[in-house]
């Protein structure tokens, strides 16, 4: 079971990122829970400076850009 966290305030990019993460989960059939974090203080504990951010199992894998579903799938498989 993996945890995927999308960090952002619900702007367009964050929504696209969440959609891509869902696609990646479906295509890889990895068991994962997706959470969308919108609280500023909580987002900042990850130390990112630009949103949206993507966190898999507690570590930041991307921020400030919207990775494709393919990229996310690779990260989900990778570890």
């Amino acid at each position, binding site marked *: 079971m993996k945890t995927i966290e999308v960090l*952002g*305030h619900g*702007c*367009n*990019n*964050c929504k696209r990122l969440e959609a891509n993460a869902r696609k990646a989960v479906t*295509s890889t059939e990895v068991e994962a829970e997706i959470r969308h974090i919108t609280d*500023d*203080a909580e*987002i*900042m*504990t*990850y*130390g*990112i*400076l*630009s*949103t949206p951010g993507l966190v898999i199992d507690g*570590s*930041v*894998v*991307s*921020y*400030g*850009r*919207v*990775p*494709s579903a393919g*990229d996310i799938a690779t990260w989900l498989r990778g570890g």
Partner: protein
Amino acid sequence: MTTLAVRRTPLPLPLIVGLATAAWIVAWFANQPVADWLVFDVLRLEQGSQVGETMAFFLEDAPKVLLLLTGIVTIVSFLRSFVSPVRVRNALSGRGVLPGSVAAAGFGVITPFCSCSAVPLFIGFVEAGVPLGVTFAFLVASPMVNEVAIVLLWGLSGPGITAAYIGAGLVVAIVSGLIIGRLGLERYVEDYVWKVRARSAVVEIRPTMDERVRDAWRSTVDIIRRVWPFVVVGIAIGALIHGLVPTDLVVAIGGKDNPLAVPALVALGVPLYSNAAGTIPIVEALLGKGLPLGSALAFMMAVTALSLPEMVILRRVMKPQLLAVFVTVVATGILLVGYGFNIFLT
């Protein structure tokens, strides 16, 4: 796994970029002949007639500006992927207020700014010890001097007015930063901001060349999709103003003899946020009809730098007092730019 099997083989990246560049160049040079042909041969409008010239102006300028936007925004987005906010922050945290504000205003121009990133940036800067004034210089410059506004200004009004806009924008940002820094308003930052501590230092993630190009193109498509209707409508209104609105009227209402023109235009600019794309063509047409440069600059700056949605977002990290100071200082700066240009440039 089937999704992987059906994935088409992508063309090599340099080839795609080369083809796109070639297509852009062809479109750029075909634009004027095609517009002329449409207006004077297909629609059979008379050359030199009011209607014909207005139509030709519109059909030439709208594609021209959209092409410019597509090209420049792609290049800027690509170059921006090399400027990491983390490095910007580190460069700013060790500086005094004056050099810091100057550097911050400069960085504000090149760093991406979307109002949804304003909060993490603000907290991240403050947390790293970037002085409040320097952070504000950044927050003012970033939305004001942005590539969409610059491309539109350059494409429609030429380099002189573009330079005046950028220069005045930077001065407003730097001076706002210096003033806010002097006022010592740290206690009006929301308290939780000071307590935030990152669990871990930010990892620098460097995208691959492929990702940089893809991201740049995707964000360009995103921006163009959002602004093109405003550009087209703005240029259409601009074309009508060229043809219909009498110069005397513009001079009487917006001219320097009307002392209320500048504040009225600034107030009008605030709700027009994110419509820089639509307002600049109109302002350009009004400039042609005798609107003084100062009034025009003040209006455009109000459109880009002061916006309600951004204030709502910034309210999350600032107490109302600080937000009020921010708005007052920036608005005063814009008013001074407006009056200054109107008085000294005519």
